[in-house]
Each structure stands twice: as structure tokens, then as C-alpha cells.
């Protein structure tokens, strides 16, 4: 646990990718297989489900430190992270205790907590905390509250494991796809040399698109690219092997059971077929996707009822073929994979279609067509190089995403509360309102989009213009106006405005506008009506 906590602290303190890979490589090279397996598990983002709720942990921390509960809560508001707050409140422990291994801590200390009653949980936690220094405590508490996160992506971790085990990155990436079970055996299999293993249920690493940041003219001739609509659904691979079907999300979550209509259709695929595409909630009457909010109703259900399947039918819009007749064809050019995809999918039926191509002779023509993206229920275009293989991860130049500009409104800052992480102790979680009948009604909350300097300035404003406080939330004088960008809008009971926006973020601070100049609820409703 000491070594893993030290790794966490070092990764946290490092801002260079090379340093991070080196730190990870060093850790994996030295760790026992069991520990390496668990470290990999949590570093890849498969953190154990939350074991203790925030309120429960605060109560235990108050009891253990002898502090009143409100003071633990006030500390939490300042620190912004409960795991760290509790580690700091517990203070520096005896440093001479022997370190327990990461695997033992997780398997014998952390996971069993789930089965204990409140009283035994507290006894167990006291004993566990007594074995750790502040950093170990912090890491343990993060695992405990399900909030473990450190700034390394799975690509970086994969590279480090590849280096530590002296294997090609591709081999490790592929072996890591799908369900990873944190055991010494799994680690040993992962890092052993040689291949020839069965691909099993695993998907391939997803090819990711880069946003177009300059002009489309810089890409080259439109004829060198396939252009498709950019769907706003769940990116997924459908794996058909050994007479079984596995549906994997881009987040490498197995979605089996959730979308029975797709699995039913997949039984008609030849053995040894892997498709890449998008799961969409679909309106079979208009041949258009339903809003993402409808799909969300399906995502939440592990086994959907007949009723919800009828209300929100889904389809799989395929756009790539990665394996055919048991052969990995990712190295074939996009054009050729596309042709073979069309042959494979055409025969299937309505729950599976091929993402249509958009034909145009020039970028200008495409730009004009792209204006219709939102009314088609899409986010813009995907632009894929015809002669490129299927890349692992984000390889610039193979796939591009060309999204339509977001919707935007001008809204007034009405309330703020302290953020977490690197924004802890600063008022950075904002609530915004628009005008309706002379008062501001809440339309959105947003956390991002300002520069550090702007964040500090808004923080100062909030502190000096507080009109009321509710716990950590401060109501402020309605004076600052911000342009909010968002991807979509839908009716909702969450806010008083009766509307909710999707992916709201601050586009810019409208210092040129007075609160009275901000948008009204009526103008925002017009945006709703303009959507499909």
C-alpha cells in the first residue's frame, strides 16, 4: 500500500506524460503480481463501487477525531474532497508500522466492509487507518468512497505496462480489452510473452476521432474522405464469436442484456464478426434518432421491460467492420472495410443499419449540409480517411469530428458553491438563471469554461456580493452575465425554468452585458421548439 500511495502522490505531483509513464513503469516493474493486478484495475478506472456513503464516512470521522459533525462538514467544504478531508483530520499516524500490501488492503480490509454492520465498520476502519500514513489514508478513503481518480488515462497505463513487461503496446492493449479481473493469475497472463490466445469476448481498442480545430481545407481533398453524420448515442462494438454476442461500450462496459433487439439481430451475423457503431434510440416512423434523453432511459435499465423497449426502441447504426470470418481486418483501408460492412449488414433487418454516407464535392457544400445536423438529430459530421487502417485510440489524421456549433444563451450568475479537486475552496460551481416575469429562474449549473484568473475574479465577486447562504451555497447579487454553450435542451422538472440543457459550459464572460440584458425564458423555449 505504501508503494501504491507513493505512486499516487508522485503521479499527482507530476505534470509530464513521460514522467508519469516512467513512474508507472517503475511501479509495475517492482510490484507483486497481486498488487500490480489491483493497481492496474483501479488505475484503468475500474474503481470498486462506493462502499461507504459520504454522510456515513463523515459521521465515523467525527466520532474517531472527537470533532463535532458540523466541523467535519465545514472542513469538507474547504478541502473539497471528503477522502482527503478525513485523511487530514486523522492526522499523521505512527510511521513505523509495516506496510500491508495493496491487494490485502483491498481484499481483506476494503471489500469486506460492505458486509459489516455500522459498528463493525467503524472498528474495522479504525484498525485499517491505524496501519497507514496520511497519503495511504487518502488513497484508501478514495477507494472507500468510490472517488479514486488520478490523472492518467488508460492509454498511458497501457504503455507503462507494455514497457514494464517488455511487450508491444498493441498486445497489452488488446489483452486489456473487456473484463479485467484483478488477480495474480490475470496479471501473469497479461504480461506473459507470446500470443496465439483466443480473442474470447474482447472488443478491439476503439478508434477515436480528433476535433477539427482549423479549416477543413487543411485536411486535403474531400474525395479522400468518407463523410458520415456524427451520431449522438452510445459508441459500441458488437462482438459475435463462438455463437455468442457481446456488446461493449467505448468505456469497455459490457452492455449485454440492455439492448435485446440488437443482440437478437446479431445472432444472424457470421461467427467471427466485430462491428463498430452507435447505439441510438430510434424513431422508426421518421427514420431519425430520438433525443439523447430517450436513450438515457434505456441506458439506466440493465434488463429493460417490454414497455420501455416499445417506447424507446434502439438500433445499431454500424460504421465499421473490424473482424470478418474470424480474421482481424483492422489494417485494411477504411474504404474496403466499409464495402465489406455494407455486405454484412445489409441482409440483417431494421435493428441494424449502416451509417449512410454524405456525398458532396467540396467542403463548402458539406458545410452547408452540416447546417441540417441538429434537425437530423446528429451532432455534425464524422470525416474518415478512405485509405487509413482502423487506429487504436486517437491517431490524428485518420478520423475527424466536425461538430456543429453549440447552442448558446446569456444567463445571470445567481448562486455559487465551492468546487472540488483543484478548485477546492474556490466558488466555482455556478447556478445560472434567465429572466421570467421579472425574476431569474434557474436554467443550468455549470462548472467549467473560465480561465484560472476569471475563476479567481468570480470567486472574489461571490464573497463580496453574497446575499444569502444555504449551507455551502451562496446566493449572489444578480450582476454577472455569462454566455452558456450547450448541446441540447429538453423539458425537465429539475429546474424552476422547466427546462434542462445538455453539457452546459461557460463559453465566455459577458462583461459587456448587464444582468437586464440576459436572455429570457421565452427566448430559451424557442431554442427547444427549434429542435426535432
Amino acid at each position, binding site marked *: 500500500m505504501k508503494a501504491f500511495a507513493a505512486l499516487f502522490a508522485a503521479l*499527482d*505531483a*507530476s*505534470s509530464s506524460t513521460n514522467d508519469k509513464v516512467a513512474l508507472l513503469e517503475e511501479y509495475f516493474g517492482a510490484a507483486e503480481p497481486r498488487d500490480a493486478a489491483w493497481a492496474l484495475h483501479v488505475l484503468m478506472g475500474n474503481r470498486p463501487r462506493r462502499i461507504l456513503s459520504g454522510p456515513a464516512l463523515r459521521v465515523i470521522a467525527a466520532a474517531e*477525531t472527537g*470533532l*463535532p459533525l*458540523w*466541523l467535519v462538514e*465545514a*472542513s469538507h467544504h*474547504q*478541502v*473539497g*474532497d471528503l477522502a*482527503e*478531508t478525513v485523511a*487530514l*483530520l486523522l*492526522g*499523521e499516524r505512527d510511521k513505523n508500522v509495516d506496510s500491508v500490501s495493496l491487494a490485502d488492503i483491498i481484499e481483506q480490509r476494503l471489500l469486506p466492509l460492505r458486509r459489516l454492520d455500522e459498528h463493525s465498520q467503524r472498528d474495522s476502519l479504525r484498525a485499517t487507518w491505524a496501519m497507514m500514513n496520511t497519503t495511504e489514508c*487518502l488513497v484508501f478513503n478514495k477507494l472507500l468512497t468510490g472517488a479514486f481518480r488520478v490523472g492518467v488515462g488508460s492509454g498511458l497505463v497501457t504503455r507503462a505496462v507494455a514497457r514494464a513487461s517488455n511487450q508491444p503496446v498493441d498486445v497489452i492493449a488488446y489483452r486489456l480489452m473487456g473484463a479485467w479481473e484483478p488477480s495474480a493469475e490475470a496479471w501473469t497472463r497479461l504480461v506473459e510473452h507470446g500470443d496465439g490466445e483466443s480473442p474470447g469476448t474482447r472488443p478491439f481498442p476503439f478508434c477515436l476521432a480528433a476535433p477539427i480545430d482549423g479549416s477543413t481545407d487543411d485536411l486535403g481533398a474531400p474525395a479522400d474522405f468518407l463523410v458520415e453524420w456524427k451520431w449522438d448515442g452510445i459508441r459500441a462494438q458488437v462482438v459475435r464469436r463462438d455463437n455468442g454476442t457481446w456488446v461493449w461500450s467505448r468505456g469497455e462496459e459490457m452492455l449485454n442484456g440492455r439492448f435485446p433487439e440488437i443482440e437478437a439481430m446479431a445472432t444472424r451475423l457470421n461467427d467471427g464478426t466485430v462491428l463498430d457503431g452507435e447505439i441510438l434510440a430510434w424513431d422508426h416512423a421518421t427514420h431519425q434518432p430520438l433525443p439523447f434523453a430517450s436513450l438515457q432511459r434505456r441506458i439506466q435499465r440493465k434488463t429493460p421491460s417490454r414497455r420501455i423497449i416499445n417506447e424507446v426502441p434502439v438500433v445499431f447504426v454500424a460504421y465499421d467492420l473490424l473482424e470478418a470470418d474470424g480474421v482481424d481486418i483492422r489494417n485494411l483501408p477504411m474504404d474496403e472495410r466499409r464495402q465489406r460492412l455494407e455486405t454484412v449488414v445489409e441482409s440483417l433487418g431494421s435493428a441494424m443499419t449502416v451509417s449512410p454516407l454524405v456525398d458532396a464535392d467540396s467542403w463548402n457544400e458539406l458545410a452547408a449540409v452540416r447546417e441540417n445536423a441538429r434537425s437530423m438529430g446528429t451532432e455534425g459530421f464524422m470525416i474518415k480517411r478512405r485509405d487509413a487502417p482502423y487506429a487504436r485510440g486517437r491517431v490524428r489524421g485518420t478520423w475527424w469530428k466536425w461538430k456543429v456549433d453549440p447552442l448558446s444563451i446569456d444567463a445571470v450568475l445567481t448562486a455559487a458553491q465551492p468546487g*472540488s*479537486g*483543484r*478548485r*477546492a*475552496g*474556490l466558488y466555482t460551481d455556478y447556478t445560472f438563471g434567465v429572466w421570467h416575469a421579472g425574476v431569474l429562474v434557474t436554467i443550468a449549473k455549470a462548472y467549467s469554461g473560465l480561465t*484560472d484568473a476569471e475563476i*479567481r475574479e468570480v*470567486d*472574489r465577486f461571490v*464573497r*463580496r456580493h453574497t446575499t444569502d447562504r444555504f449551507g455551502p451555497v451562496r446566493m449572489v447579487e444578480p450582476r454577472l452575465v455569462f454566455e452558456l454553450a450547450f448541446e441540447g435542451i429538453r423539458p425537465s422538472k429539475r429546474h424552476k425554468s422547466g427546462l434542462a440543457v445538455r453539457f452546459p459550459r461557460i463559453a465566455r464572460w459577458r462583461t459587456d452585458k448587464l444582468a437586464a440584458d440576459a436572455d429570457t425564458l421565452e427566448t430559451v423555449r424557442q431554442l427547444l421548439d427549434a429542435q426535432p
Partner: protein
Amino acid sequence: MDRAVITHAHSDHLSQGSAAYLVAAPGQAIAAARLGGRSVESIAYGERTEINGVRVSLHPAGHVLGSAQVRVEHRGEVWVISGDYKTEPDPTCASFEVQRAHVFVTECTFGLPVYCWPDHTEVVRDIHQWITANRAAGTTSVLFGYSLGKAQRLLSMLDGLDIPIWTHGAVEGMTALYRAGGIHLPPTTPVASAMAQTDWSAGVVVAPPSAATSPWMHRFGDVSTAFASGWMHVRGARRRRNADRGFVVSDHADWPALVATIRATGAERVLATHGFTDVLARYLNELGLDAGVVPTRWEGEQDNEPAVGDSP
């Protein structure tokens, strides 16, 4: 004000515009410099003076050189205003001396129980290890701390490393006043007067936080930066600083020291100011003390690092 009694020369405790200033003797030169060279009266620590029939004396606060608690006594009632203070030993200023008081006005910059400072010798060791690793990697170590007080304490922590120490002009100016006040500090060279072709990575640079984002930094090439502040105790604040390291070096009392000091004064009434005032007052009330809050103009930014510049 006709007459201002000054606890110390940080800009949130000393401002222009008063007719007369009174400070503790070891802080006289610094206060005068901060006020642009005007004259400042001083008395020795513990020496009593009378202002409008009120007995006034200044006592060491352990915050920076010359920092003082203000003790006022009238008809047998004693009030002590702490100013900023710390109780940890610090070779660059006189140690905090507890004063018995009926009413104690206390700062509470770090008035939350999460602020409990690590062992100072470990922090010194960490700073030394960071510099050693940077030197081995050919990277320049740049250590940021406020030019009055923090920077000199950092210099004292670097004493014994026996490597070149370069200073930013703002730091060097204050450091000269410390030396003139009889404080021993390791030798320093202003960055501005270093030789051309200096190998900065062989030593360490001490600069105020405001220099971190200035073009002044360009000359050092490949750098590793570190901030020294009590706020660095919390990960979010460390990450926000965008520095390579954050060292927990504070010139303020941590939570245990605040509570212990308040108890040691024997005060029946405690007034919290500058910091987490509501939190401290509520906690003290629950302990059975009569506690309240003194609002100040600076309260708004106390639970955050000062945004820019080189004050406290």
C-alpha cells in the same frame, strides 16, 4: 487614523494614510521601508507606553521579524490583539509569547482542523531532497514564498546546504533588512547581479509568488517550481498552483496551535478575525467560551491564497 499600532508590515495589516505609526522595534526598518521610507515610531517588545490613558505594549507574535501582539490595558481589563502569529519556533524572528488576557482577538487564517502542520524537520528534508534531485537532473529549483517573512524563513531552511542561493529583487531587499536586524541567513546573490552564463541548476532561486508567471522566469531554462505556504497542505490548492511541488511552510498557527493558544491566554472572551472566523467562533462557543467575530475588509480572501502580488 491619527495613530496606528501595527502588528506587522504585511499589506493587509499596514496601509498608507495614518498620521503616526507605532511598531515593535525589530520591525521598524521593515515597516518604514514598506511605507515608502516615512518615519515610524517603535518600542521594544514588552515595553509599556500610554496612549490616551490606555496602557499599550507589544509582544512577540512569531509571524515575521518584528511582528507583534498588541496588549492594551485599561482599568485592570486586558485585551490582546494577536495580529498574525505562529507558535512554531522560527530562527528568523522572536518566538510567540503567550499573554494572559480577558479578551483575546485572534487571527484564524487556518482555523479548520484539517490544517495541522507536518513535522518541520521533514519539510526541510523534503525541500533539500527536491533540490538535490533537481541538481542531479540539471533542472533549476525555483522556490516561491512571500518576500517578507516567508522568503527569509525559507533561506534559513536552506542554511547548511552549501549551494548558491539566488534571490529575486523583492526578496533580496527584505533579506537585507533582516540581516541588518541581526538575523543570520545564508549568503544570497541577487539574480540581477549574477554572472552571465550562470548555471542556475547548481543552486536554488528564491522568489515571490508574483514572479511565477512573469517573463523574469525565462532566464532559468528548465525549472522545477515549488510554493511554500500553509495552503499547500491541501491537494486542491497544490494542484491549483500549477507548481511542481508544494511545501507546507506556514507563518500562521495551525488549528491545534490556535486552540492551544486561545486556552493559554485564559481569555473569557475570544474574538476571531482574519480567516475561518465563523467556524472558530462556533467551535469555541461549543467548548463553553464566549466567542464572537470581528469582521475585516480582508476576510473575503482569507480562505484562499491572495490572488496576485507579494503580500502576506
